[in-house]
């Protein structure tokens, strides 16, 4: 088993594993809400809108974890709220206003970065570098997880009602609008927490793939929530390990590991897998053919097998 523990003798790998476990679990749990609330494209847009905030943060306060954190937070919240305000106060729908705002924000970020004295690699922003996590980054990741996870657990019932049917939730006194804003804020926070580790593009994979995979296995919301967290954590750790062993980019390996799990579930999930459904349909046909044959030959027929769900 030394081959398994050997990579984690290095301090940078220990930090990376700690970051993977925290980010993977938090984003995995949150992914249940992103998938059911259909926020994946919103998350994508918000991920790009972090850039001008990062640029201004760097220009004003230098390249520190806290300047990146607050810059990104303000930029993403401004874009998310701006899109909401434009859609409410005009004929333009929210997806359009978000599309305009995030591309403008991304472009502004690139222009602003060209004025910055600190050199920032765009590649780093998009794809992260989990092997270079500093103590400050780990503290931010830990702090964000410590905010998001308890909130998701405490608010699980009202969030579940809101996601299932917002009208029924509102009729039971749930503040649906406030919960939606809170969910968006948590999404922004988790994006920022993933920024240094896997970058904004790959963060989206961590925020959708875990719950989407469990969604193909289970009809339980609790399974989606906790299973998403565990899968996110396991997928991130396995991806990190593979990236070390094969000397490949770590962020990409993490998302590929999660993508592999999703593809396997899509094809082979016992309940909702595409191939499994195909095989099961043939089985039912054969079963009905067998029953028809015994009816014709007047033999005693086997009882029909009921669909188990």
């Amino acid at each position: 088993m030394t081959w398994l523990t050997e990579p984690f003798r290095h301090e940078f790998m220990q930090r990376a594993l700690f970051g993977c476990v925290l980010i993977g679990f938090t984003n995995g749990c949150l992914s249940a809400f992103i998938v059911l609330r259909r926020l994946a494209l919103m998350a994508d847009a918000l991920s790009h809108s972090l850039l001008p905030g990062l640029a201004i943060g760097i220009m004003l306060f230098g390249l520190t974890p806290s300047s990146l954190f607050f810059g990104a937070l303000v930029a993403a919240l401004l874009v998310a709220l701006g899109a909401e305000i434009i859609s409410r106060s005009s004929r333009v729908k929210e997806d359009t206003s978000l599309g305009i705002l995030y591309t403008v924000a991304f472009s502004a970020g690139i222009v602003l970065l060209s004025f910055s004295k600190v050199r920032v690699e765009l590649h780093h922003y998009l794809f992260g570098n989990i092997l270079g996590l500093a103590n400050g980054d780990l503290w931010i990741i830990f702090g964000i997880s410590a905010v998001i996870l308890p909130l998701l657990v405490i608010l699980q019932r009202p969030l579940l009602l809101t996601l299932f049917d917002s009208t029924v939730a509102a009729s039971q006194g749930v503040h649906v609008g406030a919960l939606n804003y809170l969910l968006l804020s948590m999404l922004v926070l988790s994006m920022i927490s993933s920024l240094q580790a896997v970058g904004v593009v790959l963060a989206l994979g961590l925020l959708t793939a875990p719950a989407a995979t469990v969604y193909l296995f289970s009809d339980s919301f609790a399974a989606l929530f906790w299973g998403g967290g565990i899968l996110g954590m396991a997928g991130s750790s396995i991806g990190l390990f593979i990236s070390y062993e094969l000397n490949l980019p770590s962020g990409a390996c993490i998302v590929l590991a999660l993508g592999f799990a999703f593809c396997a579930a899509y094809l082979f999930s016992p309940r909702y897998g595409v191939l499994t459904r195909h095989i099961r349909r043939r089985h039912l046909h054969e079963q009905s053919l067998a029953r028809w044959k015994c009816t014709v030959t007047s033999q005693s027929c086997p009882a029909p097998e009921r669909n188990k769900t």
Partner: protein
Amino acid sequence: MSAHHRLEIKDLTVSYHRAPAIHHVTAEVECGSCVALLGPNGAGKSTLLKAIVGIVPPETGSVTFHSGAMRKSAADIAYLPQRSAIDWDFPITVRGMVETGCYLRLGMWRFFRKEDDARVDAALERMRLQDLAGRQISALSGGQQQRAFLARALAQDAHVFLLDEPFAGLDKSSQESLGRTLRELAGRENLIIASHHDLKSVPEMFDHALFLNGELIAFGETKDVFTEANIAATFDTEIFSGA
């Protein structure tokens, strides 16, 4: 809940972007009644149901139940949305959905106790869903889905059931079965208000009828108000637009 508990709607106006959807509606109905909410598309039936449950704010007037504001009676009122408004692929079983009816009583923290489980079991049994409790909700027929929503309302211990188009998309036998279930609930001193389109089945399914077309056209016992004149006044006139 005794029969003298009543739902009072006084001078209720609800508007969207300053155009009234319903206009100065006044009605009073006691528990134990089964009320058909009748009117053409756009008449404000869904708006009236949402205003009663407090989802849309009134422009004028008020709705009270048991002489108290509706917000204080949230546990007494169950709103059953149109089936088309639900994401039927949501990862939840029939039992899980019925359990959400207990959330209001349990709040965010408390665990399910034995009596809560018993309440869910009883609700499933009354709606004849105990054998289907483990199914994902999309694996139910339309009539069973409506019964699952009713079971959820029973687990909530609601007394007023507001149903938005519950018969839409159901075949005849499912419609009749759901109609019997609603009358049985009304017979146990619950108040049922359901928006409805099939005029032919109104007299056999509902003991009260409320004709709405932006304004209140008529309200009362079905035998008194279900007349050709009221039907014509409701369905053959221009919808009040507030313009």
